[in-house]
């Protein structure tokens, strides 16, 4: 069945990811490895949007709100309790709880798709201006100064239960990669469960799903919260990678690039947006070191090219191509068999005639 083929694909990708995890520190420079942890955080953000938008059909333009909240929650908690394990859980929890409240009003209030995009983006932008205004010494949560537009320091990861043993950048990279791979496998599993399939069905036709007695508000809220929790986890690795979290995580451009990753990588796939994040980050990073072309300009051009020429995104287009080729192959072999049979039959008739 198709199911097993899909699952094999997931496994292959997970193994490739593991191989990359093991070999990257061998071949890449130390500095690149440090940056990679941050990009992995962004890739988890892309994955969360791929789930919520690509599979749940919920265009959450402000997915970065949960990402940023996760990052801030991690930084503040880790600074206060002096350990990273509880802080990671806190990041996931804060993002999920915030999404639960916001999502409740959105989905149970039956806010339409367009307004949902606007509301979530607005929430991210409100958080942006709120966090920017926290520059005084009075803006303090426990021991953590929020620091206004300079942001707040994000402590590094440490061994679970042993706050004294801080992880090296390579180890942080390993942890981040494992988290990304697990998050990816989790999402692949999720979209194949009954819950996930109902979410996809809702994306395809809300009315039909409701008439089949599914409470679509509940399912949408569910996938929205799961997506937010993932985004919160992404926020952790992002801020650990940079050692800091600033209000920029909530900025308009951050929200926009997340959408761009999913469009370029392809809605309806989970691996596409992850790969697009790495690729586009590499692209902008290499453009950043020269003055000839503006990085944002290039990113904008990439987006326009994709929307016009590859509207489905890279990965779905490749899958389509492969499908077409397979179908052609099947058709060709069937034709050959038919022709063979016809000539054989022809011979027989000829034989009878003799």
């Amino acid at each position, binding site marked *: 069945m198709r199911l097993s083929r899909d699952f094999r694909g997931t496994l292959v990708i997970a193994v490739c990811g593991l191989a990359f995890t093991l070999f990257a520190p061998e071949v890449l420079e130390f500095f690149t490895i440090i940056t990679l942890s941050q990009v992995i955080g962004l890739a988890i953000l892309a994955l969360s949007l791929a789930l919520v938008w690509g599979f749940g059909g919920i265009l959450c333009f402000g997915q970065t709100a949960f990402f940023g909240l996760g990052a801030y929650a991690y930084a503040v908690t880790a600074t206060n309790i002096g350990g990273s394990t509880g802080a990671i859980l806190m990041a996931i929890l804060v993002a999920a709880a915030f999404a639960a409240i916001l999502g409740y009003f959105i989905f149970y209030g039956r806010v339409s798709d367009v307004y949902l995009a606007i509301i979530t983006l607005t929430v991210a932008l409100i958080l942006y201006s709120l966090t920017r205004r926290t520059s005084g010494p009075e803006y303090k949560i426990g021991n953590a100064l929020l620091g206004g537009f300079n942001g707040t320091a994000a402590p590094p990861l440490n061994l679970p239960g042993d706050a004294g043993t801080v992880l090296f950048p390579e180890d942080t990279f390993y942890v981040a990669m494992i988290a990304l791979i697990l998050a990816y496998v989790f999402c692949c599993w999720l979209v194949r469960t009954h819950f996930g399939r109902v979410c996809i069905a809702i994306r395809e036709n809300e*009315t039909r799903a409701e008439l089949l007695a599914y409470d679509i508000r509940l399912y949408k809220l569910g996938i929205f919260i799961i997506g937010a929790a993932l985004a919160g986890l992404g926020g952790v690795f992002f801020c650990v990678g940079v050692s800091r979290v600033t209000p920029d995580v909530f900025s308009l451009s951050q929200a926009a690039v997340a959408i761009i990753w999913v469009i370029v990588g392809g809605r309806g796939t989970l691996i596409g947006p992850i790969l697009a994040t790495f690729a586009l980050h590499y692209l902008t990073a290499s453009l950043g070191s020269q003055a000839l072309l503006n990085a944002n300009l290039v990113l904008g051009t990439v987006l326009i090219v994709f929307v016009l020429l590859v509207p489905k995104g890279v990965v779905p287009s490749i899958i389509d191509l492969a499908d077409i080729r397979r179908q052609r192959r099947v058709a060709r072999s069937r034709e050959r068999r038919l022709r063979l049979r016809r000539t054989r039959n022809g011979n027989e008739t000829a034989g009878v005639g003799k």
Partner: protein
Amino acid sequence: MNRAEIVLETRNLSMHFGGVRAVDRVDFSLSENELRCLIGPNGAGKSTFFKCLTGQLRPTAGDVLIRDVDVTGREPHEIGALGVGIKTQVPNVFEGLTTEENIWISARRWHRSSRARTLTTETIERLQLGDVRSEPVGRLAHGQRQWVELGMVVAAEPWLVLLDEPAAGMTHEETVRTAELIREINRTATLIVVEHDMQFIRMISRRVTLFHEGGILMEDTMEAISADARARQVYLGHRA
């Protein structure tokens, strides 16, 4: 009609869109195991009536009672959860999913995974959709899409079934098969079927309700309605 047998009832049901009285003070009742046909010219309010019954629209006034429980204003999924299935006039299917997935989603709502799978297979056979089992429904011909939607309704094993123009756009053979299927469903369920095709109605129904301008004009056998002068004028006349 015996009161105890009534499974669906509307009292003074009205649905107005601004000045348009799509459904206007309708008192309707349906007994258990009945197979009722709803006819009437385009714009008579049949689809709107269905939408009020299934919670897709909240009526402007009046009540809907299912098995003596007032369900007015409930959400569509709550009505569905009571065991009411509907095929809408404009096909509502999961375009991007395969025939199998469409029907599985419906069966899985009520059954554990393994039972849902067998029920899906059975439904596909029953509706003769085996050839397009793995095709995305968006790519199917109109008649087959209608059947996929019917399959979804059937796979949920509802006791009350509403079908809004189930044979629209079908070939003659397809129509005949649909009529057979409807009679088959009627063995275990109560039905209301909206149709325009008179031959089709004669194939399936004893009692017919004629809608006109948002209200019930008359309720009788097809023969009696065909013979009635008023009915001919509002409806049959239009078609001649």
